[in-house]
């Protein structure tokens, strides 16, 4: 399988002089197409920084981030916006739905800018089990339902990579599990997903586990036999 994304020597520091903090220190890894990658680390490990760089929201100081053969690390602000639009689907910890838009319209917000390449919003909402809630506003939906809309929004863009930031962080145990099954099934259908989390219980469900600590990768291993979500407890 060809790598969808390759990071080579990504480094990012904040501040200057005495207050200088190295958030990412020479981080290198590769993500294959159609896999579920778990990036695991405690808070302050540099997860958010890595997520920002992978998602095209921030720029690394040095290193290469090759996606589909071009170096995202070189992109201008404009090009990064286009990268986020075309290549990335983003699932937020706190869902981040537009409060004034219905579930369907929230998905349309993403599909609108992808034009022909986008998928049908209602079909996608059906897929995540929200076919009966398409005309509800976020305030009328539970946390789990809102996260499903958020996943549908990321999915409907039909982008190469779905990035999830602590997707179960704001949800109760059972709802969290339901959300993870949805993501897991998407990978089975060929999607490439990266989940960034501090919840070590998730480590067994991925095809690929990257542990990160103090801005450095401490382990990077493939898992040929990912565990079914049903069998994972935390």
């Amino acid at each position, binding site marked *: 399988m060809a790598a969808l994304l390759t990071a080579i020597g990504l480094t990012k520091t904040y501040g200057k002089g005495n207050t200088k903090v190295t958030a990412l220190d020479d981080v290198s890894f590769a993500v294959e197409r159609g896999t579920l990658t778990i990036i695991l680390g405690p808070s302050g490990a540099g997860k958010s920084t890595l997520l920002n760089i992978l998602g095209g929201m921030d720029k690394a100081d040095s290193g290469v981030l090759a996606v589909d053969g071009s170096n995202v690390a070189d992109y201008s602000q404009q090009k990064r*916006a286009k990268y*986020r*639009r075309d290549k990335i689907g983003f699932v937020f910890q706190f869902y*981040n739905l*537009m409060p004034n838009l219905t579930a369907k319209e929230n998905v349309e917000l993403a599909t609108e800018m992808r034009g022909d390449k986008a998928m049908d919003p209602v079909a996608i909402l059906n897929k995540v089990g929200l076919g009966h809630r398409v005309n509800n506003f976020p305030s009328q939906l539970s946390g789990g339902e809102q996260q499903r809309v958020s996943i549908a929004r990321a999915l409907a863009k039909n982008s190469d990579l779905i990035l999830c930031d602590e997707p179960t962080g704001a949800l109760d145990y059972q709802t969290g599990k339901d959300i993870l099954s949805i993501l897991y099934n998407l990978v089975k259908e060929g999607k490439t997903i990266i989940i960034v989390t501090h919840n070590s219980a998730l480590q067994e469900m991925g095809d690929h586990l990257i542990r990160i600590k103090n801005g450095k990768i401490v382990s990077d291993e493939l898992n040929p036999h990912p565990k079914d979500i049903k069998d994972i407890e935390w």
Partner: protein
Amino acid sequence: MKTSFGKTIIRSYLHNKGRFLANFLTVLFSVAITGGLGALPETFADSFAEQYVTGNAPDLIVKSKAYTGFTGPEITEISSIEGVNESQSFFVFDGKEDDGTYNRFYVFDFEQATIAKPELLEGRYPTSRGEIVVEQPTKNRKAYAINDTVTFAAANMFMPAGTTIVGIVHSPLYSCVAKERAELEDQNDKQYVEGIFYLEKSTLLKFTQNMCSDIYLRVDTSAKLLTNAYKGQVEQIKKRILNTFGEDNVAVLTLEETTSYGLFRGYNDKVRLIGYIFPFFFILVCALINHITMTRYIKDERAVIGTYLSNGVSKAKIVNKYVIFAGISVFSGGVIGYLLGTPLLPFVVYPAYNAVFQMSPATVSFLAPVGIGVIGVLLLLALFITAFSAISYVRHEPSEIMREPTPAAGKKILLERIKFLWKPLPFSFKSTFRNIFRQKKNFILTSLAVIGSSLLVLIGFSLLNVSDALKQDELFSEVASSMGLISAVIVAFAIAMALPIIYALASMNIADRNRELATLKVLGYHDIECSMYTFREILIITLMAALIALPISALVIDAVLRYLEFGSITDVQWWSYLSTFLLITTSMVAVNFMLLPRIKAIDMNASLKSNE
């Protein structure tokens, strides 16, 4: 506890200097303008009255209606009427020249004259037959130079052909550039005098020396000129004269009834009325800005308020912290604005007034009831708005206060029920319309600002249209010529006032929706698309409000013009409405451009953080 609470207050005040200045400066500016405008009529009335005092103008002018004028005994009788201090009899007539123009001639005893004796500006008083002095020229009075020789057919009984001008004079009774109406036997014949001349009585032929048509009177009064007490006393004496001689025989004019003063009062009264209208706008502006400033201040200190409350600081103390801040900033701005505006504005406007009315130098007066009223209203409003806003926070539990307020929930709006209108709308417009009605406060305040400034802009244009229509009127032709500038100032002021308010409202709206905009950025929206997301709202609110503003403004302007007794709404041209609309909407586009950096600066990380 007490001192540390005090310390946090001082630190918080110091940290919010910008907000203090926002309140302080808007109030300062508003009070300076409204207080200054309010001080104009009193200041100028004093200064106009003062030139009557220096010129020793008569309190009463008694005119004989008899063709032969007053007789010697009549003059004695009038001067001995109770309350009359001083009298001066003379002869005056308006005469028609061969070319159909009119001149006014006075026959004065310059040696003896004390009341309204024309002040010599140039040359000398006449001393021999064939010499004459002339009232100084104005726009409406012909100019003569010393040594000019003139021949007046109308006055050939008093002066030979080829009379020489020997002096240029000024009488306190002719202190207005407006045309002086000629007094003719036919009251309906409207003619104006083009020159006012004075002859020396002793230089005339004997048989013309004792003619007397008018008597100037100074009355016994300690009251200040043209005050109500003065007017009352003068009226009494006027009645006595009329009772003695009968209205068929004499006409008695008070100083107020002279042409100059009548015009001055008409003009001054308009300025007074305008001074009553402007405070409404300024109060609206200040209330909006105070409201925005204080609600942001309180909102930003949510965490602090929550901490105060959980540490047992009383709700009243917390509310007072903000009320005192608002009170001090508004009151100090008001007082300083008042002290600057009331003396300064009359000083700035004086030359414009003095070009129409010859006045004594203006004396600085700090008395402007309008300004004091505006300070009072602004202070009350600021205190009320702030207390209301602060109370709405401290009523809740500390934990609730500290949490970022959850954005208003979305819901279907009325427009969605009208399917044939809603269905064809592009998706982004549907979102925009829901947002407009979701954020009602923003909608109402923005509309208010747009309607207020549209009204002011249209007032500016209307004044120009109306004064163009009134150009042929006597005094107003003077006023009309200066109206272009006044209109431009009002229009510029209205725009200058609208821009920062709309900017503040829009940036407040952006701050409130930081998370939404950050999310859009993460989803891949470009900066320009994100700004369109908020701009569509501003633009649609502006378009709706500006359209509604036009008929509202027309109604208000109609009422204002009636109130000022100045022109009519039908004088207002169609292009004034169009220009108002265009000016306001383009200003809003400008605001959006100014806000672009704010959108660019939104940090996408804001989308990743908790809402709680």
